[in-house]
């Protein structure tokens, strides 16, 4: 349950049976051939996998390097989140759970969870910060359409962190029939590991897709944005042990890393406990968790998954912090050069090309973790289009 010194399960005793049941079963269940078969069939026929590995010709010309985009934006529901919720809903069914809870920030994970619950006919309750409910109305509407109950988190900053607290509280109160579908590689063990394994399909596909296109399974770089870190975990997964493949994690610098309005956890964070996991998190000297800021609701999280804390601390991945402005510019550039509107989260990863010079022969795979339809208003307002 640890990545170096990070990870673990720092949970109240009330959650012990739930988490322990999951810990004891998740690897066994995931290894079952019927589970694999059902998971893979849904990824193919329902999610639309494999997601393409798209050679971005015009971008590659501009930056004089080989840029491939891993198109998670084309997944059903519009982001990588669904890979995990498909896996977890199958897990929940096998564990006999009939009630599903989830937290959501921007609403992508909430939609992905509501989606798989509809697919399986299970009750779904999504906790979402009251402020996020107001600013992410389309995703709230989608969840309602899908039959989920969206419960506003009224405590704290009324955003993602607080929605997570509320979801954990719900789980504490409903220990028997409920499975909590965490949306990122955060939370107590086994969540970070389980979610990473469900997302690992992303790097698995990159390997064989790159083999088809470039004759090698190894990109020179894999670039992904990191909030909690699930899309990066998926994109990095099969390359973690191969140091020939350089990993770049892009965090949200908000209005500037040291502006006081940032979500660059690796730089600003210190080791601590958040949502059941020992990791890097943004906190006061006193150990109170501080409010992060990013224009991207999906990166607006004060912690980071323990895998990423370890990648940072060990130096295995390079961490870059990209400001709101630079991310937005990179996002708009992708629209105009490749006809793809990226989620603002993904735009952070795309900004790497203005930040770092690559060689012409380098193969750089960028995780395009989601589509930007949910972010249209933010883009339009930002650029006064």
């Amino acid at each position, binding site marked *: 349950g640890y990545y170096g010194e990070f990870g673990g399960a720092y949970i*109240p005793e009330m959650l*012990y049976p739930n988490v322990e049941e999951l810990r004891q079963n998740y690897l066994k269940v995931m290894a079952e051939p019927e589970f694999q078969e059902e998971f893979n069939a849904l990824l193919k026929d329902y999610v639309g996998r494999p997601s393409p590995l798209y050679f971005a010709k015009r971008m590659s010309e501009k930056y004089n390097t080989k840029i491939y985009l891993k198109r998670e934006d084309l997944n059903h529901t519009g982001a990588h989140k669904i890979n995990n919720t498909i896996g977890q809903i199958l897990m929940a069914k096998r564990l006999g759970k009939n009630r599903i809870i989830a937290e959501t920030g921007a609403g992508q994970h909430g939609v992905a969870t509501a989606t798989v619950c509809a697919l399986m006919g299970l009750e779904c309750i999504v906790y979402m910060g009251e402020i996020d409910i107001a600013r992410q109305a389309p995703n709230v509407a989608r969840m309602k359409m899908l039959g989920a109950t969206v419960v506003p988190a009224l405590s704290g900053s009324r955003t993602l*962190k*607080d929605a997570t607290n509320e979801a954990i509280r719900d789980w504490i*109160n409903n220990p028997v029939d409920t499975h909590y579908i965490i949306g990122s590689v955060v939370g107590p063990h086994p969540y970070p590991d389980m979610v990473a394994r469900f997302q690992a399909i992303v790097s698995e596909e990159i390997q064989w897709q790159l083999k088809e296109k470039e004759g090698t399974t190894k990109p020179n770089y894999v670039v992904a944005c990191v909030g909690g870190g699930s899309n990066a975990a998926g994109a990095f997964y099969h390359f973690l042990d191969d140091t020939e493949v350089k990993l770049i994690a892009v965090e949200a610098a908000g209005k500037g890393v040291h502006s006081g309005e940032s979500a660059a956890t690796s730089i600003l964070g210190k080791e601590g406990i958040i949502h059941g996991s020992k990791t890097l998190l943004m906190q006061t000297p*006193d150990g109170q968790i501080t409010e992060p800021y990013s224009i991207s609701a999906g990166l607006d999280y004060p912690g980071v998954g323990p895998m990423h804390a370890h990648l940072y601390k060990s130096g295995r991945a390079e961490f870059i912090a990209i400001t709101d402005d630079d991310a937005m510019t990179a996002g708009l550039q992708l629209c105009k050069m490749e006809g793809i509107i990226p989620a603002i989260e993904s735009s952070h990863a795309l900004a790497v090309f203005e930040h770092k010079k690559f060689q012409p022969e380098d193969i750089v795979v960028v995780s395009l973790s989601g589509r930007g339809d949910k972010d249209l208003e933010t883009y339009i307002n930002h650029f006064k289009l």
Partner: protein
Amino acid sequence: MNRINQKLQEKTNEKLLSIYFTAGYPNLNDTTSIIQDLEKSGVGMIEIGLPFSDPLADGPTIQASSTQALKNGMTTEVLFNQLKDIRKTVNIPLVIMGYFNPILQYGVEAFCKKCQEIGIDGLIIPDLPVDVYNDQYKTIFEKYDIINVFLITPQTSEERIRFIDSISKGFIYMVSSASVTGSSSDFGDVQTEYFKRIANMKLKNPQVIGFGISDHTSFMQATTDARGAIIGSAFIKHLNSEGTGKIHRFIGDILEA
């Protein structure tokens, strides 16, 4: 002998009432006077809540008090300062209840050492799991004679209860039902059965029941089989509506119908 053990081993029919309150709430400097008033009112043990920004095992009442306490300026340092002379006036066991991250940031050893200096007898850290404690922190706690209190719930297996009993030194905090703090206060058959089941296990540590106790009735129900009970949210609600002036009356109502 640690005051917790002393207190719980007293030969008496009287059930122990333990009160939780959030340090720094309603006002930053209410901490010591609340403690003193509680002792005077007949409370047997006090849990001093070290407020945390993200108290995920707590319900809305305690969370709101924590948020306010932090706004008031409460920090670990401030709390220790407020408590530095507490043993000049207070004799009952004092336990600090706090989430693990602030303690970790302070340094677990420094925290325990400070507790010993002040005269804090135990800690309740809801998100420090038994095994992590056992592997990494037990020796530190023991070095400073700080009792770490563990929770059990209706879902805790017998095997695990026995394990927790084996490493516990003061009492076992029995969560009355699967819930966060401040939930419904009626104990039904399910709870009563659970209380009996645990009582019949004849654990070496006494049990103190918490969560869902708010008045004389529920206090009496909870302590039928257990050594004592803890009231938290109901006391915070009392402070919300009545302020700090009528603590005596609140405690009196709990203890005597």
